[in-house]
């Protein structure tokens, strides 16, 4: 068990309705997992509870081997006084410096290195932001729509690269895209409205990797399961 949430209850201060009611779920092994669910169901809130950015909840969060948790979201920006290259060099720990080149190339960011963040397209901005997080030391990374505005081919390339580069780390990928969630993720935590019981359901994804075969029927089956669960 890497991460376990036991009977989590939470509502925003001043609000009447619960966000979570007796929510329980667990992630048992490293890999590229997903947190899936309709808009407003509490995915980002759950992510912030896991990282400790939100407190005041009831229940228990147990972790093992996931002490360093990072949460990244798609609206983040880099300081404007740096070029991308200067920023990456500044914020990368010495032990991870050699990964800069590889990640920059894999994420198609070579042409952006001498630009400032505001000069990049939305997709390039999100890729740059994700790159700098991947260059940090972490055990669990929660990626909240981190690949929004990135085209499908590049997105696939990036996810496969992350899975190849960090097989021992744990990722929780928040996305609304049922295709990419079912295709690339190992375990899919489907978060549902607090009226439904249980509020979270764990499903097995296809965990697609390079060199593996995937049939259309498998994909459709998996997607159907996710949609039905939500």
């Amino acid at each position, binding site marked *: 068990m890497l991460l376990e949430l036991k009977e989590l209850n939470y509502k925003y201060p001043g609000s009447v309705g619960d966000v979570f009611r007796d929510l329980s779920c667990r992630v048992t092994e490293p890999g590229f997992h997903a947190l899936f669910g309709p808009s407003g169901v509490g995915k980002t809130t759950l992510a912030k509870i896991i*990282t400790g950015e939100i407190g005041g909840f009831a229940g228990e969060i147990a972790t093992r081997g996931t002490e360093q948790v990072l949460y990244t979201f798609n609206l*983040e920006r880099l*300081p404007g006084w740096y070029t991308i290259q200067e920023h990456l060099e500044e914020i990368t720990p010495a032990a991870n410096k050699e990964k800069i080149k590889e990640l920059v190339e894999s994420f198609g960011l070579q042409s952006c290195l001498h630009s400032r963040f505001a000069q990049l397209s939305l997709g390039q901005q999100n890729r740059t*932001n994700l790159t700098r997080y991947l260059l940090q030391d972490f055990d669990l990374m929660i990626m909240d729509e981190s690949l929004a505005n990135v085209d499908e081919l590049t997105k696939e390339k990036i996810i496969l690269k992350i899975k190849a580069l960090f097989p021992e780390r744990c990722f929780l990928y928040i996305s609304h895209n049922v295709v990419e969630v079912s295709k690339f993720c190992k375990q899919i935590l489907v978060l549902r409205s607090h009226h439904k019981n249980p509020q979270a359901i764990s499903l097995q994804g296809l965990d697609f990797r390079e060199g593996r075969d995937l049939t259309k029927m498998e994909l459709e089956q998996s997607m159907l399961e996710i949609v039905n669960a939500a």
Partner: protein
Amino acid sequence: MLHRRIYQFLMIYFIGLAVLMLVKYSLNLSDYTIPGVNEIWNTYRRYFGLYFIAVLNTMAVAILGHVLSICIATVVGIIGRLTVWIGSFIRVAAYNIQAYPIVAVAPIIFILLGDGLSSRLLIAAMICYFPLLLSFIGILSEPVAEIEHFFDSTRRMNWRLQVKIRAFENIHKLVTVIVGSATLAMVGTIVAEFIAANAGIGYSIRIALYQSDLSKILVALFLIGVCTSLYLVFLEWLGSFIKKRFGSV
């Protein structure tokens, strides 16, 4: 930028002058009450040099006071952004004290410090300090979550970086408020000189007032307007340079 500022000032100045002349000739007022164009022109030629030096003197104090107030507002703003009690105390104190008219405090300053440079400087700084402080506190207290989040979660955040991020993100607002407060610095210096100082254009206006010489006052106003416009143009140029160099956020 330069010609726009000067053009705007000249337009307002000459409209004002025209209104005065209109009042003078329509009510048939004497030259003693409102001097004629010829007298104003003669006064201008006679006193231009003297008043120009006085305005430069005033401007030097105003700029010094302006810089001083920017420095103090930055330091207090940095402390005021803190979420601990000292930050709250500074914020509350700043909001309350700024409501108090500095001109009312000015006589105390003159009594305590005399009518020299220090009093003029202090009053100039105080008059433009509070608007600056309120903006600085507001800007430096407001988190920029989209940028700060990374540094917070990787435990790299320190107060210098936080201030840098917030100042950089709000560079347009900072430049606007600094340019806006420059006029206040000039006003503050002239008020100080008018109340009790022994130099500067405010002092010259006071003497002219005792002599009931409106033409001298009009000449002084003209020079104040031109010099203030030049200072504002310089600040605007500096602001646009900073925005161009660093403002691509």
